[in-house]
């Protein structure tokens, strides 16, 4: 049995705290974000890591690359900003923009 973890701004994580999620790391700056993501990934109890879509563009390309297709923990970006990672991947692999 694993848990969900949330990393992001305090305003972003507050709602998830309301939904009962206990593993929450508040991170504002880019360094804090990288540190919090590393901590969450090291935690064996974390099965799903929730990030804000805009934070996905603020982290280093290396971390982003590792997060995008990570299975344990599985990472999901939530937010209003459009995340083009999947769209780009489809274009690259299939050759057509199917999104």
């Amino acid at each position, binding site marked *: 049995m694993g848990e969900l973890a949330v990393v992001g701004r305090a305003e972003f994580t507050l709602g998830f705290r309301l939904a009962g*999620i206990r593993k929450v790391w508040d991170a504002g700056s880019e360094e804090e974000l990288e540190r919090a993501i590393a901590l969450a990934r090291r935690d064996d109890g974390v099965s799903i890591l929730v990030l804000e879509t805009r934070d996905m563009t603020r982290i280093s390309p290396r971390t982003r690359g590792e997060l995008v297709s990570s*299975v344990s923990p*599985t990472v999901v970006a939530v937010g209003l900003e459009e995340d083009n990672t999947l769209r780009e*991947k489809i274009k690259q*692999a299939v050759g057509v923009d199917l999104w």
Partner: protein
Amino acid sequence: MAAQNVTPTRSELINVKRKIALSKSGYNLLKKKRDGLMYEVFAILPKVKSIRADLVQRYKAAQESIQVASAVEGAITVRSVAMTVTNPPKVVLREHNIMGVKVPKIQADSVRHPLSERGYGIVGTSPAIDEAVTSFEALVEQAILAAELETAIKRLLDEVEKTKRRVNALEFKVLPELDEVKKFIALRLEEMERDSLFTMKRIKAKAKAREAET
């Protein structure tokens, strides 16, 4: 493998023919794998798109509800309620194999809780907070679905690309080069055969001439 660096022998020709047969069967298998992966991608893609659209809608609704709750109850109350909410959603993460690609299979439990099991006092809080909690529970539920399917499709797409690269390398680099080597060896062997035949004929002619002289 440059054709000129190969020793033109029969055993080498047999080796090259064996390599060509192996590469061709690998090429056919990889093409089938690529098509199979594509089929899986196309099967998941509509679901991923609708789940993502729904996730954005639920996020919008959740943000609005928490803003309303903050306006009605005050940010500090919302924060203190957030600290009292217990019962975190539990998930079981398993790995599922699609054509050698490991994708997550997530089973979620106790994401949504009835009002009485949320851990905060119902009397002291307003329905705005209940509404915010409900919205975020719905968001978490959808985020779990999105996590599973989006990661699966991303991993499948990575594998499609890798397989495509391998298929192309076999089709445009390995197989043409091996064919070239095969042709080179075959030509050289034919040439050597003609050479030896010509030498034999000359020796035979010389021997005949010598016989005629004596």
